[in-house]
């Protein structure tokens, strides 16, 4: 695993750029642990200060330092994204591998449910859940809801990989050797499925972060907890866009776009690593 990472870093420019971007943003987000102000405090600083030596990225109309606010915001947004990503990976893995391994009727039933869920529009359902929960809608609850909606594409992908493993020699050996279904899946198949999981994880992370931004921007989340979407929400509340407080909007947007770009580059380079066909064409190039 480590040597793969090293190789990817050394020889794949996309991966390198993606890794560096993601790592930089992660470090930036982690910096909020050293923030000089509590991240929910407002009006501690002079409002609307443009970027300067004192306030690197300026201050908001709520008297917050954009730099530190953004740092906490990205941290929280990434945490949300990671929770969604991990939860939905677990569901996708369970459903996908089981479906692919069991095959037959079980596969058909699971995939029918899967396809049904794919066809449901996410945003209206999330908004409906928000509508019901209102101020009880904490971010972990939102993450669970999002995870419940965000696994089905990838379950299909994982299923197809497992399906191809099902008839392989080693699976039969394992079954003859008396391994149980979970044992076969975890010990024998999981290593083959992991790269796909990893690839889908990046895309899922992008999706989850986008979801957080979208819902928070509309104010459909806990607006007191700094998140990237929450920052844009507050900037809109104070009409920063038309009031010329551009730094309040531009920096979080740039940060989140860079984060997306980083994750996306990681995703495609990992995909390339997994997919021998595109690897082959790279060899030529």
């Amino acid at each position, binding site marked *: 695993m480590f040597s793969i990472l090293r190789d990817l870093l050394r*020889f794949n420019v996309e991966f390198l750029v993606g890794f560096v971007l993601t790592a930089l943003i992660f470090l930036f987000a982690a910096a909020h642990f050293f923030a000089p102000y509590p991240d929910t405090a407002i009006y501690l600083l002079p409002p609307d200060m443009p970027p300067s030596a004192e306030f690197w990225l300026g201050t908001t109309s709520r008297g917050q330092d954009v730099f530190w606010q953004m740092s906490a915001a990205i941290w929280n947004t990434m945490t949300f994204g990671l929770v969604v990503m991990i939860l939905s990976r677990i569901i996708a893995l369970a459903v996908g591998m089981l479906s692919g391994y069991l095959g037959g009727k079980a596969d058909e039933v699971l995939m029918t449910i899967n396809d049904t869920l794919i066809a449901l529009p996410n945003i209206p359902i999330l908004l409906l859940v928000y509508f019901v929960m209102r101020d009880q809608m904490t971010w972990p609850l939102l993450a669970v809801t999002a995870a419940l909606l965000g696994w089905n594409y990838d379950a299909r992908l994982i299923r197809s990989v497992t399906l191809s493993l099902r008839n392989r020699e080693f699976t039969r050996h394992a079954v003859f050797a008396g391994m149980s279904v979970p044992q076969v899946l975890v010990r024998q198949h999981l290593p083959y499925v992991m790269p796909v999981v990893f690839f889908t994880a990046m895309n899922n992370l992008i999706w989850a972060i986008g979801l957080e931004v979208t819902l928070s921007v509309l104010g459909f989340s806990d607006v007191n907890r700094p998140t990237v979407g929450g920052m844009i929400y507050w900037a809109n509340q104070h009409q920063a866009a038309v009031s010329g407080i551009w730094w309040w909007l531009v920096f979080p947007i740039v940060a989140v776009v860079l984060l997306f770009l980083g994750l996306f580059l990681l995703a495609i380079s990992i995909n390339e690593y997994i997919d021998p066909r595109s690897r082959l064409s790279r*060899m*030529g190039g």
Partner: protein
Amino acid sequence: MQVEVKPETLAAPAEPVLRVENLKAYYQMNYFGVSREVRAVDDITLTIHRNEIYGIAGESSSGKSSLIKTIAGAIRPPLRVVSGSVRFDFGGRTLDVYDDPQAMKAARWRHLSYVMQGSMNVLNPVRRVKHAFHDFAFRHMGLSPSAFRARVEAHLEQIGLDPQVLEAYPHQLSGGMRQRLAIGLATVCEPEFIIADEPTTALDVLVQQDVLALIKDVQSRLGSSIIFVTHDMTVHAAIADRIGIIYAGRLVEEGPAQAMFARPQHPYTAHLIASLPRIGDTTRRQSLPGKPPNLADPPSGCRFHPRCPLAITKCETESPPLEPRGEGRVACWRAGEVAAA
């Protein structure tokens, strides 16, 4: 299965259609900072004559498939031609495959066609079969659409296919029918030269027989030359006039089929033939020790020496040249002693 060796055809005056000279084609890879060079086709020279079926044999990853792709001009990076030439001679016009791609493209299907490995999958799954014939052959024939259609139908009947298949989609046809269609497609323009890459590999034995018979039949009717690749020596025995044996990217022996089966010159050839099943043979077939060589890092000297039962010190250091011997050519320091082994 019983091996029938094709009776020697009457030796026609040797009129070369294909000349491969000192052909080198390497996979050149640069991945994760390591450049690797795989010498898949390593300095091969051979000639194929009119009305001749030439079989290329070798185990998997010996480079035989790369050789035939290189001859067909069907290579894609990272496989590249490093040196040498491939020239066809169609009615006095000489075509160099890698010098004049335009002329080559124009000659395809008219003079030169190709039966691909896994040729069941060469038809576009979303179009009717007739479109494939149209795409490939129409412009070469100079016929009106209706005359073209009649010609294609007649051709298909000749090879034992119902013309109705033209209206079908590939997925509606069986594997054997698709294989036949592929051969029909490759022969509809009556080309002088047909390249066939493992034309029968994926087929079951009965269909295989059928397809082999078809190839032979078409070839004898058209008088075309065929070069084909398969690892299956029984197939070579069935249809090849001459056979070339490839080992680790090199041609190690070449000669008329009958002679070769009777008197293999190279120890590797001898092994290939010896491992064929024969009726009444109860002795254990010898298996060759060792693995096929890694073409990225081939053994020194004769590339076969690590596995060769007759290897001597010279074999480890000096590479044997391909030299005429008997009715064919062979590259072995101990060529004369093979039969004794």
